C-alpha cells in the first residue's frame, strides 16, 4: 500500500501506567494531511481514548506542539509523512498520551521518554 501511513503514537497514562508504550496504527490516509489531521483521524476512527491538544489549527495557538520523528513541530502545520512516530512535547509534564501541562516542566528521569522508538523508520530521510 503506497498511499497509507504507519503511525506510532506515544501512549502513557501516569495514573495507571508505569512505562509509556507505543501504539501502532496502520493504513492511515496521510497525503496532503497535516500531522494533526492524522492524529484526528486516529482519534475519531481508531482510538477515541487518545488524548491530545488542539486549538486554532492555524499555527497560532501552539497547543498542538508534539514531537514527530524526533523533532518538535506544530502538528497543524507539519505535513504528515508515511512513517511517523508521534510523541508529546519534550519540555512539559505529560497529562495523558500526547497532552501536556504547559504550566509544569517535565522532570527528567521520572517520566521516561527518550528516543526509544524502534528503528523501522530508519532510512526515511
Amino acid at each position, binding site marked *: 500500500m503506497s498511499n497509507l501511513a504507519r503511525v506510532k503514537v506515544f501512549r502513557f497514562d501516569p495514573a495507571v501506567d508505569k512505562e509509556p508504550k507505543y501504539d501502532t496504527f496502520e493504513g492511515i490516509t496521510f497525503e496532503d494531511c497535516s500531522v494533526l489531521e492524522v492524529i484526528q483521524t486516529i482519534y475519531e476512527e481508531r482510538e*477515541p481514548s487518545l488524548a491530545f491538544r488542539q486549538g486554532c489549527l492555524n499555527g497560532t*495557538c501552539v497547543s498542538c506542539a508534539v514531537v514527530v520523528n524526533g523533532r518538535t513541530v506544530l502538528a497543524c502545520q507539519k505535513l504528515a509523512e508515511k512513517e511517523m512516530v508521534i510523541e508529546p512535547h519534550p519540555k512539559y509534564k505529560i*497529562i495523558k498520551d500526547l497532552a501536556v501541562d504547559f504550566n509544569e516542566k517535565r522532570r527528567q528521569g521520572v517520566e521516561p521518554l527518550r528516543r526509544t522508538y524502534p528503528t523501522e523508520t530508519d532510512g526515511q530521510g
Partner: protein
Amino acid sequence: MGTETTETDVLVVGAGAAGSMAAIRAQEEGAKVLMITSGALGRDSAVTWMAGGGFQCALYPPDSPEEHARDTIKNGSYINNQEVVLAVLNEAPRCIRDLDKWGERFWKEGHRFIQDFMPGHSYARCMLLKKTRSTGEIKGPEHRRVLPSLVKLKGIRCIEDFMVTDLLTADGRVCGAVGIDIKKGEFKVLSAKTVILATGGYAACFKSCLTGPSVIGWGYGMAYRAGARFIDMEFVDFYPYCAVWPRLRYVSTWAANLRYGLSGKFMNRAGFEFWENYRRRGLARPQSIVMEVKAGRGSPHGGIYLSFRHVPVNIIDQYLNEARGTVWRKQLMESGVDIKNEAIEIFPSAMSTLGGCQIDAGCRTNVSGLYAIGELISGFDGAHTLAGNLIISCFATGSIAGRIAAGEAKIVPRPRINEQQINTLRQKIYRPLERRDGVSTFALKARIKDMMWEYANVIGRTEDGLETAIDEVERIKTTQLPRLATSAKNPRFNLEWGQCLEIENMITSAEMTLRSALARKESRGLHYRDDYPHADPAWMKNVVLKEDGDRMLVDTEPVTSRYVKPREGVAADE
C-alpha cells in the same frame, strides 16, 4: 455529596480576547474573579488568537464613535441594536489605549496611532501593527502575546482544562456553573454572584469553517437552557478568502493577506470580474462567490479565482519580501504556485456568527446575573459585519461587562445553590460515559455539520430545505441525543466525552439558526433566502428565540432607531 465547589464573585467562562478583557476589568474593580478556559491559557481554541487584520476604532476627530456607529448600523442593514452599538464603540478607544499600554505593538508616530482604511468605513480606522503595517496581516498572535501573560501577571485566578457544561440558576438568577475538570475527569461546581459568558460563536457547526473544532456554541446552549433570549441567529458570516487551491496546511485565511495586501481581483472561469454585478444587487461578497460557483462558472477546485496578474511584478515581490517569516508565505513558496502568473482559488468558509444573546448596553442578558460578551452577543453587527468590527466588539463588550458584573457582584448576596439541580446535571454529564453502547459522537457531529452546510449556507436557504433540516434536528433531539455514548470510558482527559457533551449545544445553535432563517422571509445582509431574494422593509425587525418548555419559541421584535434613521436599499460591502 462531596462535590468540590469553588466560590467566586465574578465567573468568566472563556479566556479569549473578550473573556480576558472582562476578567482584567472585573479585577480592576476589586471583584474576586475566576476565569475558566477549556484548554491551556493562551493555548486554547479561542478564535481571537487567530483574528484577522481588521481591528477598527474611531480615535481622532473628525472621526468619532458616533461616525463609526453610523457606518456599523448602515452596514448592518439598520437592524442593529443602536444602544449596544454606541455603548460598544464608545468603549473601544479606551480598550485600544489600554492594549497599547499593556504592550501591543501598534504602529505609532509619536503618540498618534497610524490607521488605515478598510471597506465600508468612512474614515481610516484600522489599527496597524508596527511590524507588518498591513491591514491584511493577522493581529491575533499579538493579542495572544499580550493578554494571557497579563492575566497571569495580574494574578487573576484561572482554571485551565475545565469544561463548563451548564449554568446553575436559582429564583430566576444565575448562581454559578457546573462542569468537568478535564485533567482529572471530575465533576465540579462553581458558585458565583455574576457569570460572564465569553465562549465564542458556533462557526464549527458548519462543515467548512475557519475556527477550531470546539467553537460550536457552548455558550449558546448553556444560556438558552438558563432562559436567555436570542436574536439575529439567522446571520452567519462566511469568510470569502479561504484558499481551496493551493491548499496550504488546513483551512487558512492566508489568501486574505494577499487580497488586501495586493488588491486581488475576483474572477470566474471566464476571467470575468463578477463582483460589481452582485454588489449592485446589494449582495455580500461570499454570496456572490457561491452564486458564481453554483452557476457553473467556478474553478476546478470548486471555488472562484483570485488574481494578482494586474499587479506589477516588482510590487508583488516587494510585498512577498515584507511578508518574509510568515507561515503562509513559506508554505506558498513550498506549494510552488507563482502568484505573479497564476490565480489562486478561494471559497467561503463559516467564520463568525452575528446572532446571540439579546443584551442591553451593559451586556446584561434577560437572565439576571448573566452577561454575554464577545461573539455571543447580538445586535451589534445587525445583518452584516462591518470589516474589522468583530475583534473590537470582543474587547469592548469584555470591558463593559467586566466592570458592570463586578459592580453587581458587590451588591448582590451570594445566591444559594440548588442541590437538586446539581445532581440532575451531574447525572446528565456522566450518562454518555456510563452508557454501554449507543450513538457515536463523531458520526452525529459530522451529520449536523453536513446538514448546516447544506441547508443554512451562504445561499441556498429555502423554506423546504430549512423545514427538512428542522425535522432532522427534531429527529436527532429525540432519537440520537438521548442515546449518545462514548467508547472511551476513562474520564481523565477524555476528549470524546467533551465532544459528546458539546453536541447538545451544537444542536441548540443549529436549531436557532435554522428556525430564525425560516422565519425571516426576505434577504438581508448575510441572510439570503433563495425563495425571497429581496429585502423587505416590513422585515425591519429582529427574530427572537427563547426556550418554552421543550419547544423553541420564535417571535419577532421591532427595531428601534433612536440615533440613525434607516434608509433602505443600501448595498453592503464586506
